[in-house]
């Protein structure tokens, strides 16, 4: 049996102390209470601060539990924050690939479009931020669905003859997404269109959304109708860049 993780035990103890101290506690208070060195406690509260479980007061001297700690079931990343973090990298992906780029997240079993970048050909296009897409019929959807433990779509509606409507087949597809780390779709939502997406992992590896591109099959796929490797690499690098931004400074 693997052993327990000491730093998690200590973090739990810090959380208990903070929960019992409505006015908050300083690093020294916590260190004294737990018999730990200040640097150890400092590392723990800084990490808890980064993941959003504790907050600092104005002076920076005291820590207290955050409201978010009491609402752990809710999405921890504000969708507008996700857009702010993604915007530079999504733009770059659109201009490199020449395709439409979207950032999405899972909301009540559907993919909500959080950010949308036009295909860079200056043609007429409408922003579709705030609209939803079917998760089983888009790469963006599969890229988030694959990592979600609760939200399996109830009914698998067919959009084209290629849409995956069999739950078993969808499970297999999602297992493939997990093993490769990226998702594809081929005429499963709209005839003649294909898409590629990759999950965006926030702190601790939590998937907070996905970024992907979509376009006509002759541009997205090679002559053997396989999704182009260079586009897959670009999409994955974009997801990684957004994730790095999210983890760096919360």
């Amino acid at each position, binding site marked *: 049996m693997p052993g327990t993780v000491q730093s998690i035990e200590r973090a739990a103890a810090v959380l208990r102390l903070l929960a019992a101290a409505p006015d908050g506690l300083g690093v020294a208070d916590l260190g004294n209470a737990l018999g730990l060195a200040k640097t150890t406690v400092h590392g723990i509260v800084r990490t808890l601060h980064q993941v959003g479980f504790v907050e600092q007061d104005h002076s920076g001297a005291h820590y207290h539990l955050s409201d978010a700690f009491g609402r752990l079931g809710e999405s921890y990343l*504000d*969708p*507008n*924050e996700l*857009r*702010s973090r993604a*915007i*530079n990298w999504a*733009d*770059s992906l*659109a*201009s*490199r690939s020449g395709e439409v780029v979207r950032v999405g997240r899972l909301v009540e079993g559907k993919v909500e479009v959080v950010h*949308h*970048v*036009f295909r*860079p*050909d*200056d043609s007429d*296009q*409408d*922003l579709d*931020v*705030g609209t939803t897409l079917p998760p089983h019929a888009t790469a963006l959807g599969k890229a988030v669905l694959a990592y979600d433990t609760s939200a399996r779509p109830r009914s698998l509606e067919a959009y084209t003859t290629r849409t995956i409507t069999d739950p078993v087949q969808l499970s297999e597809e999602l297992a493939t997404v997990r093993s490769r780390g990226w998702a594809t779709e081929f005429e499963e939502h709209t005839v003649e269109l294909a898409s590629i997406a990759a999950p965006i992992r926030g702190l601790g590896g939590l998937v907070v959304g996905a970024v992907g591109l979509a376009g006509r099959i002759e541009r997205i796929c090679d002559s053997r109708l396989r999704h182009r490797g260079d586009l897959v690499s670009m999409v994955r690098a974009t997801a990684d860049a957004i994730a790095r931004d999210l983890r760096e400074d919360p």
Partner: protein
Amino acid sequence: MAEQYVAAVDQGTNSTRCILFDRRGRLVSVAQREHHQLFPRPGWVEHDAGEIWNNVTRVVPAAIKQIGATPSQIVAIGIANQRETSLLWDRVTGRPIGRAVTWQDTRTDRLVTELAGSEGPDRFAQLCGLPLTTYFSAPRIRWLLDHTPGLRQRAERGEILFGTMESWLIWNFTGGANGGLHATDVTNASRTMLMNIETLEWDDRLLEAFDVPRAILPEIRPSSGVFATATEVLPGVRIGAALGDQQAALFGQTCFSAGEAKCTYGTGSFLLLHTGQEIVRSKHGMLTTVAYQIGDQPASYALEGSMAVTGSLVQWFRDGLGMIHTAAEIETLARTVEDNGGAYIVPAFSGLFAPHWRSEARGVIAGLTGYITKGHLARAVLEATGFQTLEVVDAMNADSGIALTALKVDGGMTANNLLMQFLADLLDVPVVRPMVTETVSLGAAYAAGLAVGYWPDLEGLRSNWHRAGQWMPHMDPARRATEYANWQAAVQRTFNWIRPEDQEP
């Protein structure tokens, strides 16, 4: 051969960024560090110039490392900077004398009133294109020389150097006290009130009026052109450009022809309209400023509408009031309600900039009732940016005689969809975001890349511009008129708040 890039350094109000761009003008990496905002007294806002240079020395290598590149792949450095922020340093030691006094600092308000005297704030407008306000550098230099014992004598002896942030960076990139170049560019110089807007040279009449010794001033260079070869951070790489951040954004949006305009939404927001080689004098509160100068070509000019507090109002809502955790969350909060509930926030934190230029104004929340929730206030915060833009666009249209048909936008606040839609609704024109929101950096990169031949000409750059998003107007005209009238009534209530006897001696 390994791919080559241009490195843009955007020394902004809140942070310093280094962004690498490739030949197609695409962003390939970003590294950023914030610096401290120092508020030693009410109305004073300072930066530590040493901290800022230190941040430059960290973000540039970090941006290169991020993509596994080497410094030899960088063909040029382009600098864009927060404008008007003023610094004095010691020529011999290379060390700053005190802190940089930022553009938001209002310590010179009394001095500015005195200097305006009976002739009024437009006393020097014919010479430098700017009204006398606390916003520009010259009164700040005067204040520093007057308030630091012995400094004026040292300045006259040539021991002290003045610069805005690009001068500080160029000086340090080229060795600082060991042979550093002391230079500025025409756009930054055009914000000091010391440069003649027509000759593009320091003007003795202005130097005399502000009592600034010529010995402290940097050499004025074109915005795009090789300044020098760096010896620090990126030894051997040429510094190809320096521009004020707003002028850089105009360049990055490829507004190269008369009549083209953009608005950048950051800490403050700035709408610039390119007026070609013509110097247009505003009758409606716009500034006349240099847009850019490429090599030995004639300079291009712009009219500018400056809004001091836009993104910083969001920051105040976050840090001052603690209503939200991140700037972006304001949109989530604002969407919890349908409208502003009748509340209007006029953020005249340090007076009002364009088109009013009222330094005695202070902020108000108008229309406050028991019905107002924090959601309504969040809306009012965002809408304040929209209304201020409308005031500036109205003034700009009146000056140019041509109505704006679309607004090109960029900057951090353009990630806010609610605000962008509100802007389109209020202005009644499409609002368009380009594929690169970091146009400040892109403009600095373009200007530097042109100087070293990485890009051949302006036309090639224009073809890099693509639309990334667009918001179309939908608001009912009657509602727009009522909202604007309410805003204007709220603005009236900010006037004459600071009375002359309140000003600190």
